[in-house]
């Protein structure tokens, strides 16, 4: 029953998002035919292009046609990119960039945040704690695009360690592709690391004040066991919630970094599609993005009972 409810609400959210995207684009001024023809357009050529794209049909017909296609697994074809490329393929290509990038960034930030947060909590009020908190504050305040530009100038242009953008295909050059993702993943990871470090630290401090910690210490358990086994494993519950939200933000919110590093990811695809009023492409990409976000949420829900067996009893 719980699962059925969960699934139904997921499907309803997807449908709602698709209607809202459709309406939002419809209400924006500018139409794709005008954007295709630019400053050479006149009434006749506009009419011809609208007719070829099916834009002369009423909005409800356009939406229902789109929905019918999606139900059959067909996202249709884009206006902007050649009509021979299906939207499914365009979105799939973009996910080959965005998913490794988001995953890399989140793994990187967890890898730094957990030890740093734990360390800071263990030395509460000490010099190390202050230094870590200072960097966490700085990491939060630095804008990603600025850091990205600096990182490109130093690591790509000056040192030549990484390519300054334009990622090759995974199949053609896997090492090159991975190399192009390193700097953007670090840039994306930095503010997330900052947030997560503070979360881990706070959660650890709270946990360390619990009675069972005092009991453990009292019966002579080694301090490392207290911190890692009893403390950290409980602090991770709060951390996983925040990390999940961060991951969701990363799937949808890498557009600035994708733009700075010229990565052909989902954010850039949606942005260019909106600017060109490429309705089916926006629809398809937003739909897939929403589906991913919902799935991540769902998986997180499944993760809680593993981290905290008490939740299982509530289910």
């Amino acid at each position, binding site marked *: 029953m719980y699962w059925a409810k969960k699934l139904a609400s997921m499907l309803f959210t997807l449908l709602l998002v698709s209607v809202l995207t459709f309406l939002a684009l419809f209400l*924006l*001024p*500018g*139409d794709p035919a*005008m*954007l*295709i*023809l*630019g*400053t*050479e*357009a*006149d*009434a*006749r*050529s*506009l009419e*011809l*292009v609208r007719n070829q794209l099916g834009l002369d049909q009423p909005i409800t017909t356009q939406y229902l046609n789109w929905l019918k296609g999606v139900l059959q697994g067909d996202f249709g074809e884009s*206006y*902007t*990119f*050649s*009509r*021979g*490329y299906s939207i499914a*393929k*365009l979105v799939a*290509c*973009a996910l080959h960039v965005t998913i490794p990038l988001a995953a890399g960034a989140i793994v990187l930030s967890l890898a730094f945040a957990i030890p740093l947060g734990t360390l800071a909590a263990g030395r509460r009020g000490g010099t190390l704690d202050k230094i870590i908190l200072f960097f966490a504050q700085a990491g939060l305040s630095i804008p990603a695009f600025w850091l990205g*530009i600096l990182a*490109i*100038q130093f690591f*790509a*242009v000056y040192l*030549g*360690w*990484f*390519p*300054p*953008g*334009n*990622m090759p*295909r995974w199949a053609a050059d896997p*090492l*090159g*592709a*991975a*190399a*192009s993702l*390193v700097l953007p993943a670090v840039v994306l990871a930095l503010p997330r690391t900052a947030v997560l470090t503070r979360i881990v630290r706070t959660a650890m401090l709270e946990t360390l004040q619990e009675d069972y910690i005092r009991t453990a210490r009292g019966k002579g358990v080694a301090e490392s066991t207290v911190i890692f086994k009893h403390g950290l494993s409980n602090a991770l519950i709060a951390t996983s919630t925040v990390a999940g939200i961060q991951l969701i933000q990363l799937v949808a919110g890498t557009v600035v970094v994708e*733009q*700075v590093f*010229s990565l*052909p990811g989902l954010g*850039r*695809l949606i942005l*260019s599609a909106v*600017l*060109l009023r490429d309705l089916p492409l926006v629809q398809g990409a937003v739909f897939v993005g929403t589906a991913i976000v919902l799935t991540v949420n769902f998986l997180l829900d499944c993760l809680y009972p593993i981290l905290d067996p008490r939740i299982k009893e509530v289910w």
Partner: protein
Amino acid sequence: MRRLISTGIVVMFLLVFTAGCSSTQTSDSAVVAIPTDPEGFHPHHSVAAASGEIAFNIYEGLVKAAPDGSVIPALAEKWSISPDGLKYTFTLREKVKFHNGRDLTAEDVVYCLSRLIDPEISGKAVDFAGVESIEAEGNNVIISLQAPNAAFLALLTESGAAVYPPEEEENLFTRPVGTGPFVLAQWEPNSQLVLEKFADYWHPDLPKLAQVVLKIIPEPATAVNSLRTGHVDLIPRLEAEYLHQVEDAPDLKIIDSPMNLIQLLIINNAVPPFDDIRVRKAINYAVDREEIIEGAAWGMGSAVGSIISPAMDFWYKDLTGTYPHDPEQARALLAEAGYPDGFSASLHLPAPYPLHCSAGEILAAQLSRVGIDLNIQVVEWGTWLEQIYTNREFELTVVGLTGRLDPHTMLNRYQSGSGRNTSNFSSQEYDELLALGLQETDPEQRVAIYRELQSILAREAVNVFIMDPNQLAVMQENLQGWNNYPVYVLDLAALFWAK
């Protein structure tokens, strides 16, 4: 020990990453940075500029544009025009092959051009409305016109007039098949296009490179960094604001020339107070073009006084002296028109074009000195096209209009009732002379007519024609053979590496 292991891991990582980004430059290939994906390669349906500039290397028409803007033979080896200007006879080059291996025939040309002029199929049919018939006769293609049209040959150089094998019609969007020097071998949307040498190209010496990779890099800063680190060999159109990052680089060179694009302040001639010629003249006197060129284009542009670019010097009339920068005169004219204290108006600027936005900001400061207070609104391109270009709900806007090879297609923007007449200009004298220009077959007379049309636009102070910004092509020092064209194409066939 532990330290040793961690150092080892770091070194390994660095090795892996540096190996991944070593330059792939070889002597027979080049990497070119372009800002956007083409929209597809069907000559009759893909009309975006980004498609046309690449398609130039894949398809050919009967004739094509040369770097100096003249019309030169392509698939047609030669042509003749009947004395009355109505009949064009094109003789096809022998043994021209399509990329699919088949020989080009006159019937293929007739098929493609007939679709181009069919308003049910092609958006470009409007330009070809005066074509009476297109016929094949042996190795000749004969095109008859209803009335003489001196712009006709130049129209045939445009990307829509490309010839492709009819049997490939279905897949042309993503798998273009033409007769050009390059074959499209791969297209990864949002990432790159790979052009490979067509071995059976009719010109024995072209193309010189075996492969050209077109990388899609929307951010100019990334393109510049890629060029400086050797990941890219050529940026055909660099924004002037990035010039300082490359001009002192020892391994790079810049080729610049007027790009045949007119940046102008479009004035809506139909709304008050701009329906008063004295107000329009006042604005013209108030503008200091040199200051705009210096401030917005870093000095890389030529001042113009006409909708025709100096790049088209055959047709161009230098009218920059009509309204010299004279704020006193501007204030006097405003007072005469009943605005001694000036007035306020709105200025719309297109967000994706920093060149036009900066120019608009400088222009607003200049106009404020004569009492015209401009309220600047930066709008997104889609909004600009609908609200300003199509619906003409605006007072003033700054934009760039791309030049064509023939002046008629530029000058007919000011024809009464034209769908492209954003300025709402209307003059019977102008319309009549424009019609006359199309029918005139004597080249000298025709030039005189087009120069007179430009004079009318200046005399009526229809718009403020600001500048033709330079096309800045930046490339590796030893890359040779690049030409800037006065039309929107990338000519990749002549590129080669100096030894």
